[in-house]
């Protein structure tokens, strides 16, 4: 069965989606990622969609679900590399990708994840 590889990098999981997702592949990715978060205790998930030429409401829902489930598992999700035409289309479609953070590229996405985790870790001291 086709699978999208998930790479571990320290506290983070990295996923690069390089093929147009069909339904089963997208659903496998969702369950694989959640299991990886649980197994590795990852604090962040970075999803690179720079190779995707379209994101429809089905794929948007999968991405949103990954964000929501990861959140419950105590990990933040950042989607990076969205093509400009895809962004324009998503907004017109009415999809807001709630529950996930977005960043322009992998580098900024990593930075965002690090900041999020630092803020969370420093919060208890302030109280």
């Amino acid at each position, binding site marked *: 069965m086709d699978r999208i590889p998930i790479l571990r990098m320290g506290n983070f999981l990295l996923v690069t989606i390089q093929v147009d997702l*069909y339904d089963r592949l997208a659903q496998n990715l969702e369950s694989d990622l959640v299991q990886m978060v649980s197994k590795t205790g990852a604090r962040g998930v970075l999803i690179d969609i720079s190779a995707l030429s*379209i994101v*429809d*409401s089905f794929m948007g829902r999968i991405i949103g679900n990954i964000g929501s489930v990861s959140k419950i598992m105590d990990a933040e999700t950042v989607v990076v590399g969205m093509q400009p035409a*895809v962004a324009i*289309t998503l907004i017109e479609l009415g*999809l807001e990708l709630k529950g996930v953070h977005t960043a322009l590229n992998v580098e900024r996405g990593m930075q965002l994840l690090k900041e999020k985790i630092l803020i969370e870790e420093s919060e208890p001291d302030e109280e």
Partner: protein
Amino acid sequence: MYIVLNKDRMVIEKEQDVVPYRNRVKEFAVKIGMSLVNQTKLITAASELVRNMLKYANGGVTTIEVISKGRENGIRLIFEDKGPGIADIKLAMKDGFSTGKSLGLGLPGAKRLSSEFDIKSTVGKGTTVTLIKWKNG
């Protein structure tokens, strides 16, 4: 009023048909020189409608056409299924309404992404959706 310049039909019966169908639509859009943003909108709308057809009617037949009106060229897509039909089209066209477990963006979203959009449905007989995306529209 419209002249059909080129035409192709594809039968959609399983989820693996979605990606090849999207690629075929893209080929047509590229051929008439549609901009990348309009291509993306057209293919996204097509993807929504073809998924709807699979989900609610177990598939159907799609037609891809290059059409011309005056000086303007465009792509017309027709989606015909013999599914259960839609009882209340007005309701189905509302954002967030879904009888399935989806976001309810498919039909209204596809309409927003199209230049022209038409839906006809008879309960018990099926649904036909037609959309046009003009090259510069």
